[in-house]
C-alpha cells in the first residue's frame, strides 16, 4: 500500500540550508534506536531526500543495560542530491546515555551537533562506562555544539495522562528524541503518527503515549528554539519507492527468481549472523509456495537444497563464512552433478568465528577456490542493499541456464544497510525459466550429460518424468551418457567442459562498465559493498579536479568479457577491498596487471573520506 504524499510546505526561512546531513542515533539496546532511526528515515523518504542508512548492532545479544557493549546505533545520511553511502562520520549525534556518548563521540565531526538525554547522565550510568566526571558538566565536550535535554523527565511529563506505568512511559523517550530531531530538520510527523497508530492498533494507549512524546519533542525543539536546518528534496527519478535492506532484497530477489523461473523456491538454511534474516523473511512467504527448512547444520542445508534441485526446485542455501566452509563438499558434488543451486554467503569478519556482527569481503578467494579438485563455478556479487535483488535473480538465471551452482556474495554491511529502492517494474524482470527435458534425447535413451552446443549445459530431467529414469553421482562420469567412467581422456574432457561451461558465461553477462573521466589514468576497481564508498570517493576526487574512473565488478567468475580491455585503458588500477587484496590477486593472475591493493580489515566499511585519501596517496 503505497502512500502518495505531497512534500510538506517549505519550512520557514529561518532554517539554515544544508545539502547533506549525517545523523547517528545511539542508545542502549533497550532504547529503541533502530526503530527511531527507521521512523526518521521514513519521514525523510516521504520528504523527498535521497538517503542511505546503516544500523550498528551490538555484538552481544543483550549486554547489561548501560554498558558500552550494549550500545545500539543507527546512522542516516540524507541530502538534496543523490548519495551513495550512509555517510562517514556523523555531523549529528543523538546519545541517549553515557555509554552511547562514550562509544560514538570519537566519530562525531568536530563542531558537530550533540543531542543528549541529560536525564541518563546519573552517577550509576557514568560509573558503568568509567566516566569520572559528568561530561555534560566538565568541558570535555567543548568542541561540539551540545544540546542536553532532559528527555526522560519531559517524556514522563508528556505522557502522564495516558495511564502507563513509569517503565512503559519512560520507553517513549525515543519518540521524544525523534520529535526533537524532526523539528530540527523539518521532517513531517504524520508518517510516524500514522505508523504508530497502525503498529499499536491493539494497544491504543501505547500509540497515544508515543505520539504525545513525539509531539512533545517537536514542540520542545520549537519552543527552545533549537537551530533549525533545511535539506531540500533531491531530484529523484519518478516512481514508487520503498526502503530495503540487502537481506530483504535477497529474499525478494529469490522470490522473484522463483516466479520468473516457474520453479518453486526451496531454501535449506542454518541460522547464522548476518544471514539469518533471509531465512526469516522467506519463511513468511509460504503463499509463494516457498519451502524453507531450518536444517540441522550447513551441510544438511546445502544437501537439502541440492536434493530439491535434483527434483526440479530452485534450490537455495544461505549462510555466512563458517557455513560456507561446511558447504564446500556439497558444492563440489553440485558441480559434478551439474545441477542448479544458489549459495548465498553474507560475508562477515573472519577467520573462524572472528567478528560475527561486523562486515568484511574476505570470502572471495574461498568462494572461488574453496573446494578440492578443479571445481569452477560462477560468482555474483551484490554491491548495495537494493542490488541484492538483482544479484539473486541473476544468480538464479545463471544457475538454471548453465546447470551449475552459483555463489552469491553479499556482506554484513549491505545486508543490514538500507536504501530507497525504486520498485522494479515486474514486467521488466527477465524470464529465466527453462524447460525440463521430458523426452529421450538419444534415440530411445536419455543421456543426462548430452550437452547443449552453446551453453554446454546438460538437460534437466526431473523425477516423475516417465522414461527418463537415470542415475547421477559424484564419481567422474562419461560425457553424454553420464555413466561412471574412469577413462583418463574422459576425465580431461569433462574437466575442460566444466571449465569451459563457466568461462562461456562471460558472453552472457553485462560487460564491465566504468564511469569517470575519459582521459583518466587511474581506475579504481571494486566489487561488492564498497560500491558506495568508492563512488563517493571518486566523485569527491573528481570535484577536486583529479582525473579518475571507477568500475565495479559484479560478476567475479567469470569476469565480464571486456574486463581486460577496460583495465587496459588505464595506467594504474587501484583495488580497494575490505580484505587483504583478494580481487587484486585475481586480477593480477588473470591479466598480469600490477593492480594495487587498498586494504581495510577493521570490520567496518570504508569511509569515503579515508578512501579518498588512500586513493590519492596511490595516484
Amino acid at each position: 500500500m503505497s502512500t502518495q504524499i505531497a512534500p510538506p510546505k517549505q519550512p520557514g526561512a529561518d532554517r539554515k540550508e544544508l545539502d547533506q546531513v549525517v545523523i547517528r542515533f545511539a542508545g542502549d539496546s533497550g532504547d529503541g534506536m533502530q526503530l527511531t532511526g527507521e521512523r526518521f528515515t521514513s519521514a525523510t523518504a516521504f520528504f523527498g531526500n535521497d538517503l542511505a542508512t546503516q544500523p550498528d548492532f551490538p555484538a552481544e545479544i543483550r549486554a547489561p543495560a548501560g554498558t558500552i557493549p550494549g550500545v545500539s546505533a543507527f546512522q542516516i545520511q540524507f541530502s538534496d542530491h543523490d548519495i551513495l553511502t550512509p555517510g562517514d562520520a556523523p555531523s549529528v549525534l543523538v546519545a541517549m546515555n553515557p555509554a552511547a556518548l562514550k562509544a560514538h563521540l570519537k566519530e562525531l565531526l568536530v563542531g558537530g551537533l550533540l543531542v543528549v538525554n541529560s536525564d541518563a547522565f546519573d552517577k550509576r550510568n557514568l560509573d558503568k562506562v568509567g566516566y569520572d566526571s559528568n561530561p555534560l558538566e566538565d568541558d570535555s565536550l567543548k568542541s561540539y555544539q551540545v544540546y542536553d535535554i532532559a528527555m526522560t523527565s519531559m517524556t514522563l511529563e508528556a505522557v502522564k495522562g495516558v495511564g502507563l506505568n513509569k517503565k512503559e512511559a519512560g520507553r517513549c523517550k525515543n519518540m521524544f528524541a525523534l520529535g526533537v530531531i524532526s523539528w530540527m530538520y523539518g521532517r513531517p510527523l504524520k508518517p510516524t503518527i500514522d505508523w504508530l497508530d497502525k503498529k499499536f492498533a491493539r494497544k491504543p494507549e501505547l500509540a497515544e503515549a508515543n505520539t504525545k512524546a513525539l509531539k512533545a519533542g517537536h514542540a520542545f525543539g520549537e519552543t527552545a528554539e533549537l537551530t533549525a536546518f533545511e535539506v531540500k528534496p533531491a531530484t529523484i527519478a519518478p516512481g514508487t519507492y520503498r526502503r530495503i535492506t540487502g537481506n530483504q532484497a535477497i529474499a525478494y530477489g529469490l522470490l522473484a527468481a522463483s516466479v520468473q523461473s516457474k520453479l518453486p523456491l526451496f531454501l535449506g538454511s542454518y541460522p547464522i549472523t548476518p544471514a539469518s534474516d533471509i531465512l526469516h523473511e522467506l519463511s513468511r512467504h509460504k503463499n509463494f509456495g516457498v519451502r524453507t527448512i531450518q536444517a540441522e547444520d550447513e551441510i544438511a542445508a546445502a544437501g537439502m537444497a541440492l536434493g530439491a534441485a535434483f527434483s526440479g526446485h530452485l534450490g537455495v542455501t544461505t549462510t555466512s563464512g563458517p557455513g560456507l566452509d561446511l558447504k564446500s563438499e556439497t558444492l563440489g558434488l553440485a558441480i559434478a552433478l551439474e545441477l542448479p543451486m544458489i549459495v548465498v554467503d553474507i560475508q562477515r569478519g573472519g577467520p573462524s568465528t572472528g567478528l560475527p556482527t561486523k562486515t568484511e569481503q574476505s570470502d572471495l578467494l574461498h568462494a572461488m577456490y574453496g573446494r578440492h579438485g578443479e571445481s569452477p563455478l560462477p560468482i555474483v556479487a551484490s554491491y548495495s542493499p537494493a542490488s541484492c535483488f538483482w544479484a539473486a535473480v541473476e544468480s538464479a538465471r545463471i544457475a538454471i541456464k548453465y546447470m551449475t551452482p552459483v555463489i552469491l556474495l553479499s556482506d554484513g554491511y549491505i545486508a543490514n544497510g538500507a536504501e530507497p529502492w525504486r520498485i522494479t517494474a515486474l514486467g521488466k524482470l527477465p524470464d529465466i525459466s527453462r524447460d525440463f527435458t521430458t523426452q529421450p534425447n538419444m534415440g530411445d535413451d536419455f543421456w543426462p550429460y548430452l550437452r547443449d552446443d552453446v551453453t554446454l549445459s546438460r538437460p534437466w530431467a526431473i523425477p516423475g518424468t516417465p522414461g527418463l529414469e537415470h542415475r547421477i553421482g559424484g564419481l567422474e562420469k562419461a560425457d553424454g551418457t553420464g555413466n561412471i567412467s574412469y577413462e583418463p581422456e574422459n576425465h580431461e574432457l569433462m574437466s575442460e567442459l566444466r571449465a569451459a561451461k563457466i568461462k562461456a558465461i562471460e558472453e552472457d553477462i553485462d560487460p564491465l562498465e566504468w564511469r569517470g573521466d575519459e582521459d583518466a589514468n587511474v581506475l579504481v576497481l571494486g566489487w561488492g559493498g564498497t560500491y558506495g564508498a568508492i563512488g563517493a570517493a571518486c566523485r569527491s576526487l573528481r570535484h577536486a579536479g583529479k582525473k579518475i574512473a571507477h568500475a565495479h565488478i559484479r560478476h567475479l567468475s567469470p569476469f565480464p568479457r571486456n574486463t581486460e580491455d577496460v583495465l587496459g585503458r588505464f595506467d594504474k588500477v587501484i583495488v580497494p577491498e575490505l580484505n587483504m587484496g583478494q580481487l587484486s590477486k585475481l586480477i593480477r593472475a588473470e591479466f598480469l596487471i600490477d593492480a594495487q591493493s587498498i586494504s581495510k580489515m577493521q570490520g567496518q566499511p570504508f569511509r569515503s573520506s579515508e578512501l579518498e585519501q588512500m586513493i590519492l596517496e596511490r595516484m
Partner: protein
Amino acid sequence: MSDPIAMATQGRGVTEASDGVGTLTRKDFESDQEIRWCPGCGDYAVLSAVQNVMPELGIPREKIVFISGIGCSSRFPYYMNTYGLHGIHGRAAAIATGIATARPDLQVWVVTGDGDGLSIGGNHLIHALRRNVNLKILLFNNQVYGLTKGQYSPTSEMGKVTKSTPFGSLERPFNPVSIALGAEATFVGRTIDVERKHLPQMLRQAAAHRGSAFIEIYQNCNIFNDGAFIALTGKEKSQNRIYIEHGQPIRFGPNNERGVVATSTGQLEIVDVAEVGEDKLLVHDAHRGDPGLAFSLSRLADGPTTPTPLGIFRQVEAPVYGDGMESQLRAAAEQQGPGDLAELLMTGDTWTVD
C-alpha cells in the same frame, strides 16, 4: 501468475504417469550398469529383494528415487532403473530430505552403510528420523568399512582387529535400532540380507509406512568381515533368530521353546516358555506410542551373536514433516491468496516520486 505449489507437487511436464504400472516386472527395475560388488557380497541379495518387491508397490518407476552416500552399499542406486543419486559420504539422508520435502509425490529410498549412515552421516540420519521425513531408509550393516578396504565401523564389536585397529578396537558399538528409537523414529525394523522372505516383507511394510521407515539390514561383507552374522545365518540360526511380530507373543527357538517376558522391575528377560507358561509371554506391541518397549527389545541382544530380534520394533503414526509443510503452503495460499510479487514489493512504507 503460475501456482508454484501445484508446480511443486505435480512437477511440471511430468504430470502424466507412465503406462502399465501394474504390469511392471523385476526386469523393469534393473539398470544396464554392470554390478561391481565382490562376488558373494550380501549386497546382491538385498538388491535382488528390492528389485523383486518394487513391481508390487504399484508405483510408477519414474516416481521412485534412490539416494545414497558413499560406500559399497551406496552403489545401489546405479543398479536400479529408477531415478537415483549417488551422493557424498554421509549426506544421503540430508539430500533425500530435500527431495522428499520438495516432492511429496515421490517415493524416496535411502541406501546407506554403517559407516555412511552411522559414522559420518549419523547426524543427518537422526534428524531425518526425528522429523519423520517420508523416507525409506535401508542401512546395510556389515559392521565394517567395505569400500575403503576394511576399517572398523561404529557397529563393529569392541576388540575388533582391523587395518586401523591392529591391536583391537576400543570403541563400544552403536546398536542401530536403539539409536533410531532414541531419535524418535516412527518405524524401525531389522532383517538379514539372506532372509529371502523376511527381507521383502520388511521392504513392503516400510514402503507402506508414512514417514521415516528405518530398516537395519545385517549384510555380510565376505571380503572384510565374513561371518559377522553367522549366529543368525549359520547352523545355530534357529536358536538365535527372534522374530517379533505385532500382536504376537514373543517366542523363538527351534521349537518355539523360548520366550520373552517383562518383569515388574521394568526389564525384559528371555525365559523357557515351559517354565513361565505361554500366557506370561510378552505380546509385542509395535504400535505403542511410547517407544520404551521397542527400545528394551533392541537391547535383548548385545550384538548379533546371541538371540536377536528381527522384525518391526516400532511402527506408529506421527506427523510427517513433508505433509506439515504442504498444509502450511496450502493454508497460506488459501488465507493470503497465492503470492503476488508486485504486491509483495509494495508492502511496508512506500512513497512515490512523480
